[in-house]
């Protein structure tokens, strides 16, 4: 059911050599290719639209869900809704990822809307990798959207990576945090050639003691374009920190737009943005260790995006 190309994509996006342990749902070329549920984690196909509901029972600890998506059929376009219902007092890891292999002329596109409803005092670690390859003229397009609702005391850490191969992407994240909830986002993004990436974060801190820490590290090469927007709204005594740190190369273009809104005297919000080329002294240092300029550049970038 899963062919070699799709296997390679699974390896790239989810680090999977074989079927994962725990719950999983593998979607290949628009179809559910494999699924496993556990006593605590149920996966149900939606009836009204494409996608699945992932239901995690309260108190589920040390379990994981893999939901990778691979597309190898040129010209396939899909829009999938995955809703995660995480009960109270859970501690789980969710591994998502999307790989598009496009050898054909048609554009392949995956739009994924992930909604997370995280119950009180639960902890979720979410890992997402996006990857494109194949040498067809058709574009590889991914538009991931995440909607996050964190109940009191819930914690979510999102690690998202998109390093190469995706021609066009709009990455949209909206989060709403209740009292004492905590959101950590680490995004790593690399664009090259004529690629375009738009990142858009909106975090609303509604409850007392809510905190958000959103850090985006990006590298723009070639003639690629990146546009970064982060909006943080503090409606209670809370702390918010966003950071966009970009390395720009060649003829690339990067825009960073921060927007902070404090609606409470004790909302403490910070934004940091830095865009610049690789520091000359970093290249020089690595060259004194015997690396060529090219090798030095590669090391600096891969470290920066790690």
């Amino acid at each position, binding site marked *: 059911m899963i062919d070699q190309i799709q296997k390679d994509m699974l390896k790239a996006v989810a680090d999977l050599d074989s079927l994962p342990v725990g719950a999983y749902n593998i979607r290949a070329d628009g179809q559910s290719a494999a699924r496993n549920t556990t006593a605590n984690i149920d996966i149900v196909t939606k009836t009204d639209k494409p996608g699945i509901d992932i239901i995690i029972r309260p108190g589920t600890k040390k379990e994981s869900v893999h939901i990778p998506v691979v597309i190898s059929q040129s010209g396939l376009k899909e829009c999938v809704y995955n809703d995660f219902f995480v009960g109270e007092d859970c501690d789980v890891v969710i591994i998502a990822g999307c790989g598009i292999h496009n050898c054909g002329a048609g554009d392949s596109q995956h739009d994924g809307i992930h909604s997370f409803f995280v119950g009180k005092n639960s902890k979720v670690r979410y890992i997402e990798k996006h990857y494109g390859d194949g040498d067809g003229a058709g574009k590889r397009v991914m538009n991931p959207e995440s909607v996050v609702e964190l109940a009191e005391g819930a914690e979510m850490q999102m690690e998202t990576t998109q390093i190469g191969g995706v021609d066009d992407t709009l990455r949209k994240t909206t989060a709403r945090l209740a009292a004492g909830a905590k959101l950590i986002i680490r995004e790593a993004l690399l664009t090259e050639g004529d690629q375009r990436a738009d990142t858009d974060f909106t975090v609303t801190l509604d409850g007392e003691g809510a905190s958000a820490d959103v850090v985006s590290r990006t590298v723009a090469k070639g003639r690629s374009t990146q546009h970064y927007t982060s909006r943080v709204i503090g409606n209670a005594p809370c702390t918010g920190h966003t950071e966009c740190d970009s390395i720009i190369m060649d003829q690339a273009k990067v825009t960073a737009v921060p927007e902070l809104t404090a609606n409470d005297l004790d909302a403490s919000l910070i934004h940091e943005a830095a865009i610049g080329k690789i520091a000359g002294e*970093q290249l020089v240092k690595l*060259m*004194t*260790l015997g690396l060529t300029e090219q090798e030095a550049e590669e090391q600096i970038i891969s*470290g920066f*995006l*790690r």
Partner: protein
Amino acid sequence: MLKLEHIGYEVEGNKEILHDINLELNDRFVAITGPNGGGKSTLAKIIAGILTPTEGRIWLDGEDITHLNITERARRGISYAFQQPVRFKGLRVRDLLGLAAGKTTGVTAACDMLSEVGLCARDYVDRELNDSLSGGEMKRIEIAMVLARGTKLSIFDEPEAGIDLWSFQNLIRVFEKMYEQTKGSILIISHQERILNIADRIIMIADGQVERMGTRDEILPALLSSTCKVLTDKME
């Protein structure tokens, strides 16, 4: 092994930073000293290929290396520990030491160099070389990188700066050990009497020129007694 012939360095506006430097380094342990702004770091950068001299030639073991770039000189066996170490977001101590050591030595052996400079390898190998490391820690890692390379010429630019008093004696021992156990030559830029005291030869650079040069016994007593305060104690 290293020969500098009529080295001059000018920056725009005809400002002369170095003037007609002629040196032949055949001793295994040479110290360069002299007042702030005298041109010591500029000279080190010219040797490492980071700056190109506007005048003169540089020879390494009989080969004219004046037009070789930084990488080529590094591969010919020149290492340089910067006066101000460079920070990297994302690269870890183990990455840098691994790159310094190259494939043949490997990361593990390179990490042993951390203990040499008084850092517990386990606590440091996975740290990023970012702003979270203190100045003294950066300085020690910088030295460890040069030790890990183990090349025929190692240049240290004020290695003592920022190193605490207590560790200073250990630092001296690092250089002594390097001198005894390796075949490489050491070129240290320093203001510290205790470092000058273990050098075979001392060169004094002021106003972009070699002001004095000779064996330790010829130079050091005069330096210490002279009214000119060359040896500023830089230790904190």
